[in-house]
C-alpha cells in the first residue's frame, strides 16, 4: 500500500492521533482494573474497552482484555444503537445491556455504552464489556435449560439519564443478584472509566482541531481493512475443513467448519455442527465470530490493529439453533466451554495452508471455578476464578504450560482467591506428562484441589471440557491428557483469627 495524496491525514499525523486513541483506551481499561470490586476484573482482566463511531463501528480498542469481550463488543455495540433512539441521547446518558444472543454470549457480561458529546454533537461512543460476579438465577452455571432460569436480563436501556442514575434499575439489580455490593461497584467502575476516557478524547480533539472522530476513524478503518485484505490475499484460495469433538452435556458435540479463502475474503461455515444443547453451553454467533476473528488475525495478521476494518473481510455462518448459533431462549451461561473450542476447530482447518504458524490443540476452554453459597459470617457470596490448562504445541516449540488460549484472561493468585472468597485451594501445580509426547509437546495442564470454607451447603457448577476427547497434536497420533475430576469429602471449621 502506498501513500495516497488525497488522504485527509498524512501518515505521520495519523500515527500520532491513532496512538493517542489507544492510549486513552488503555487508561479506561486501567481505571476499570484498579477500581473494580472483583478479582474477575482486577486480576483476571475479563473485560474490554473500545471507541466507536456514531454508527457503532469500532475504531480502536485497549490492548488489555480478552477476545471474547473485545471482539464481541466490537460487533455488538451496534445492537444498542438499533434499540435506543440515538437522536434523543443527551450528555450524561449512559446505556446498559446484557443481551446474550447479540453481544458476548451470556448474561454475566454487562456492556456499558456511553455516548460522547463534543460541542453538543453526538460524535461516538465509549463501551466496555465486563464479567460481573453474579446476575441472579443460576448464575455462571451450565445447568440452566432456558434463559429464564439464568438470571437477570437487562434489555438495552438507559443506566443514567443526564448524569442521574436509573434508581429503579439499580434497585432491581441489587435485589436480584447474590453479590450486590460487588456488582453495583463494578458497574459504577465501568461508568467512571468511560468518563475518564471521554475527558481525554475531548482534549485530543481540541489539540488537533478535529470536530469529531469521523474522518480519523474512517482512515483507521480503511487502512486496517486494506491491510487485512492484503494479508488474506496471500493465502491460497480454496476450502479447508476440520472437525472436532467436545464432551457436550447430554451427549458429545461435533464442531465442524469449512473455511473458504476467496481472494481477499475469508468465510467460515459451521454447517454440520451439532444442534444446540439442552444445557447452558450454547454459543451465540457473535461470540463464535469474535473468536474466529481472533485466531485469523493472530495467525494471518498479528500486527494489524483490531477494529471494524480488520473484521470486515471475515464472515461466518452457522445453522440457526446449532450449538454455535444460539437463539432466544436457549441457555448460554457456560458458552465459553464450546466457544473456546470453535476457534481451535478453525485453526485445524488453517493448518493445511499455514503449517508453520498454527499451534496444535490445547486445553482450550478455561476452567472457571465458580462457587456460590453463604460464608461463615452468614453473607451470600458468588465468586469465580479462571484456571488455565496447557496451550497446544507450536511449530518449532513447545506449548505454554498452564496458559489461557484462545482466551486472554488471567489466572487469579491463590492468596487473592482465599482473601476474597470462601474457596480454599489445597493444591495447584503443573500436571506432569499432561502435554503429550512428541518433538514439541503441548503445555502442561494443572492439578487443582480445592474446597469451600463454609458450614452450609454451597454450589459448585462444574464447567469442564476435554474429559472425553483429549487435545490432538500434529500429526494427530500425539495426544495430550484428558481432564479428570473427582470429589472428596472434607469439613472446614470456622477459625478465629490469630492476628487480630
Amino acid at each position: 500500500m502506498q501513500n495516497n495524496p488525497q488522504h485527509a491525514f498524512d501518515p505521520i499525523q495519523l500515527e500520532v492521533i491513532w496512538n493517542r486513541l489507544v492510549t486513552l483506551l488503555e487508561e479506561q481499561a486501567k481505571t476499570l482494573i484498579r477500581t473494580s470490586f472483583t478479582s474477575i476484573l482486577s486480576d483476571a482482566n475479563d473485560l474490554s474497552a473500545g471507541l466507536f463511531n456514531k454508527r457503532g463501528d469500532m475504531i480502536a480498542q485497549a490492548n488489555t482484555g480478552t477476545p471474547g469481550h473485545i471482539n464481541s463488543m466490537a460487533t455488538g455495540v451496534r445492537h444498542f444503537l438499533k434499540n435506543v433512539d440515538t437522536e434523543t441521547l443527551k450528555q450524561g446518558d449512559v446505556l446498559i445491556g446484557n443481551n446474550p444472543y447479540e453481544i458476548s454470549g451470556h448474561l454475566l457480561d454487562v456492556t456499558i455504552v456511553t455516548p460522547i458529546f463534543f460541542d453538543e454533537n453526538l460524535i461516538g461512543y465509549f463501551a466496555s464489556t465486563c464479567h460481573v460476579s453474579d446476575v441472579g438465577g443460576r448464575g455462571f452455571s451450565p445447568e440452566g435449560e432456558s434463559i429464564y432460569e439464568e438470571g437477570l436480563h437487562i434489555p438495552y436501556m438507559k443506566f443514567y439519564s443526564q448524569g442521574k442514575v436509573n434508581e429503579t434499575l439499580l434497585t432491581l439489580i441489587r435485589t436480584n443478584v447474590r453479590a450486590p455490593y460487588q456488582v453495583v461497584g463494578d458497574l459504577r467502575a465501568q461508568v467512571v472509566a468511560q468518563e475518564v476516557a471521554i475527558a481525554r478524547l475531548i482534549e485530543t480533539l481540541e489539540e488537533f482541531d478535529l470536530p469529531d472522530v469521523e474522518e480519523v476513524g474512517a482512515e483507521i478503518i480503511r487502512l486496517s481493512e486494506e491491510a487485512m485484505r492484503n494479508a488474506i490475499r496471500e493465502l491460497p484460495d480454496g476450502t479447508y475443513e476440520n472437525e472436532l469433538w467436545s464432551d457436550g452435556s447430554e451427549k458429545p458435540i461435533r464442531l465442524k467448519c469449512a473455511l473458504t479463502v476467496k481472494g481477499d475474503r475469508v468465510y467460515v461455515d459451521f454447517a454440520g455442527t451439532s444442534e444446540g444443547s439442552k444445557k447452558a453451553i450454547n454459543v451465540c454467533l457473535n461470540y463464535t465470530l469474535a473468536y474466529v476473528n481472533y485466531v485469523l488475525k493472530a495467525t494471518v495478521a498479528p500486527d494489524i490493529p483490531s477494529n471494524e476494518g480488520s473484521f470486515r473481510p471475515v464472515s461466518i455462518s452457522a445453522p440457526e439453533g446449532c450449538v454455535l448459533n444460539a437463539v432466544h431462549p436457549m441457555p448460554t451461561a457456560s458458552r465459553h466451554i464450546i466457544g473456546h473450542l470453535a476457534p481451535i476447530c478453525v485453526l485445524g482447518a488453517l493448518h493445511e495452508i499455514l503449517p508453520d504458524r498454527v499451534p496444535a490443540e490445547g486445553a482450550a476452554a478455561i476452567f472457571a471455578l465458580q462457587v456460590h453459597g453463604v460464608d461463615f459470617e452468614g453473607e451470600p457470596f458468588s465468586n469465580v476464578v479462571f484456571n488455565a490448562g496447557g496451550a497446544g504445541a507450536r511449530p518449532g516449540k513447545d506449548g505454554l504450560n498452564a496458559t489461557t488460549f484462545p482466551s486472554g484472561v488471567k489466572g487469579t493468585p491463590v492468596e487473592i482467591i482465599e482473601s476474597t472468597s470462601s474457596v480454599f485451594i489445597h493444591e495447584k501445580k503443573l500436571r506432569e506428562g499432561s502435554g503429550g509426547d512428541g518433538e514439541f509437546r503441548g503445555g502442561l495442564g494443572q492439578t487443582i484441589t480445592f474446597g469451600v470454607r463454609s458450614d452450609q451447603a454451597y454450589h459448585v457448577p462444574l464447567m469442564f471440557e476435554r474429559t472425553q476427547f483429549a487435545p490432538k497434536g500434529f500429526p494427530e497420533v500425539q495426544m495430550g491428557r484428558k481432564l479428570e475430576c473427582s470429589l472428596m469429602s472434607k469439613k472446614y471449621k470456622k477459625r478465629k483469627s490469630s492476628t487480630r
Partner: protein
Amino acid sequence: MTTIRAGVDIGGTFTDLVFITSDGERFFGKTLTTYPDPSEGFIKGLDENMKKHGWSYDQLESIIHGTTLVVNALIERNGAKTALITTEGFRDQLEIASESRYDLYDLMVDNPAPLVPRHLRFTVPERLTSDGSVYKPVDEAKVEEVFQEIVASGVEAVAVCLLHSYRNAAHEQQVREVAKRVAPELHLSISSEVSPEIREYQRSSTTVANVFVKPLVERYLTQLEQTLIERGFRGTFLMMLSGGGTCTVETAIQFPIRILESGPVGGTIAGAHYSKQADEDHVLVFDMGGTTAKASLVDQGVPLTTTEFEVGRADRFLKGSGMPVKVPVVEMIEIGAGGGSIAGVNRLGLLKVGPKSASSVPGPASYGQGGTEPTVTDADLVLGYLNPDYFLGGDMRLDVEKAKEVIHEKVAKPLGLDPVEAAWGIHQVVNENMASAARIHAVEKGKDVRNYSLYASGGAGPVHVGNVANILGVNTIVLPVGAGVNSAFGFLTSSLAFDFVRSFYGRLHELNWAHVMTLVTEMEEEGKQLLARAGVVEGITVIRKVDMKYRGQTHEITVSLPLGNIGDQEEEIVNRFKDAYRELYAEANEEMEIETLNWRVIVQAQSRCYN
C-alpha cells in the same frame, strides 16, 4: 582539612564520578566501565581523580554508589544457583505465574523462564489461611530433609515463599531457623522480609531475584569496601536505593533487590534536587539515551515511587513480559525510543520508529560502522540538531550523506517524501512516542503533565526535550550543567533512609488503633537506631504511609499519614484516602467501607543541598 563527598555511577559504557568538596567545589570525572569486574573501573576512576586533584582517601567523607550490577545479573541470569521453598501443593507458583500471554496476538510468544527450574523447587508441609491463622503447622522434620536435599544439589542460595506469609511471618521464620541449624552456609531470603505483599507469584519472584543476586552483591561490595579501606578510606560507604534514598552496605547485602535501579534513579534524584532548589513544584525528568527513554515525575521535590516493577521486559517493553519485582522503585516509564531506534514503514504505510535499536554495534548509519537502517540519530543529524564534527566532543565524526541515503531508501521513498521531510517525520514520531509514554505515565498517576517543567537528562535528552515539551504543552525546560554525569550528581543529593512495612489488615471503622500505633512506633524506633549506627542522630524525618482500599477491591492505593497519635485522626485519614482516590479515579465512593493493609514508615536523614 577539606573533605570530599563522591558519587560513583557505573553504567553500561561509562563509570561516572562526581566530587563535591566541603568548600563547595564540584568536579566531574568519567572512565570506561570495566568487565567482568566493574569495581576495577570504580577504583581506577577514584585513584585517577584523587591523584589529579591532590586528594588523599582519608579526605573522603562519604562515597555513594549506584550500579547496574543487580539488574544486569538478573537479565543475563548469571547469579547463584538458587532453590525455592514453597507451601506443599504449590511447587509451581513461580512458573504458573499469571497463566496468560503478555501479547494476545503473538502466538509464538514465551513467558520469561523462572529463575529457579522445577527440579530446584521444593515444598514443605505447612499452611496458613488468608487471615494469618495456622491451618497446618510447619513439619520441621520434613523441612530438614528438604534442606539436606538442597545442599546435596549444590545450591548456593534459597528463597522461601510460603502462602499468606505477608500476614503472618512465623512459618517462614521457622523454616529459616531450621536452615540456620542444618545448612548455615546457604544464603537465604524469606518473602515476608523481602516483600511482605499479597500475590504469591510476585512475592516469590521478588524473593527469588533477591537471593539469586545476593552472593554476587555480597562479594562485590565486601571486596570494594575492603579495597577502599586499604587505600585509607575512613568515611561512610553508602549504596543508592531504587526508591531514591541511600542505605548502608549491610542493608544492600541483605536486600540487594532494592538497589536494582540504583543507577538510573540518580537522574530523577538530580531532578528532585533541582526542583527543591528552584522551587518548582512539578518536574518531569526526561532521560533519553541510546536505546531507551525514561520519564519520571517529581512532585514537591519528591519522586513518585511504585512497588510494581518488571525486570528484563521483552523487546517491545510490553507489560507482563518481564520478571515482577515488588520493592520500592522510583517510578520510571521506559520505552524503546533512543538515538539508536530504527525507523521504517509498516504494512499499513505508516511511519514507525523503534523499539528495535541499532545499539552501539553497528550503530546508526551515520556512525559509518556498517549500519544500514535509518535511526533517530541519523534523522537528528540530517535536521542539523547534531554537529557532525563535534559528536562525543569531536571524538567521532558523523556521516551526513550516509544518513540521508538510508533515510531516503527506507523511509522517504516508500512514503513519497523528500529525505528532510522524512527525517522530520522520524524526529516527530519518536517525540510523539515519548510524549505519549510520558503522558500515559502521568495520567496513570492522576497528573496533568502540562503543569510540569521538563528536566533533560541523558545523551539524547537535550536534543529532543524542546519538541517533546511542545507536544506535551509544557512551557519550561531545564538543561542541567553536567547532564552527562547527572546520575552521579543526583546520588550526592539523596539522603540516608530506611523503610519498613508491617501488615495489619482491618476495616478502618473497627481498627485496633493502639496496635497500629505500636507497629508504627516500633518501625520508627528501629529506623532511628539504624540511622544512629550510621552516625545520624539529628535532622531525622519520619514519613508514615498506609495502603488502603475499599472493601472488595484488590488494588490498593498508598496514602500518607499524619504524625502524632494516629487513632485520634481517623477522619483525617479517611479524607486523605478519598482525596487520593479522587485524584486517581475521578470520584470517591461515600458509602463503601474502607480497609487498611500495609503500614509503612520511612525514617530518613537530612539530604544535602547544592546550588
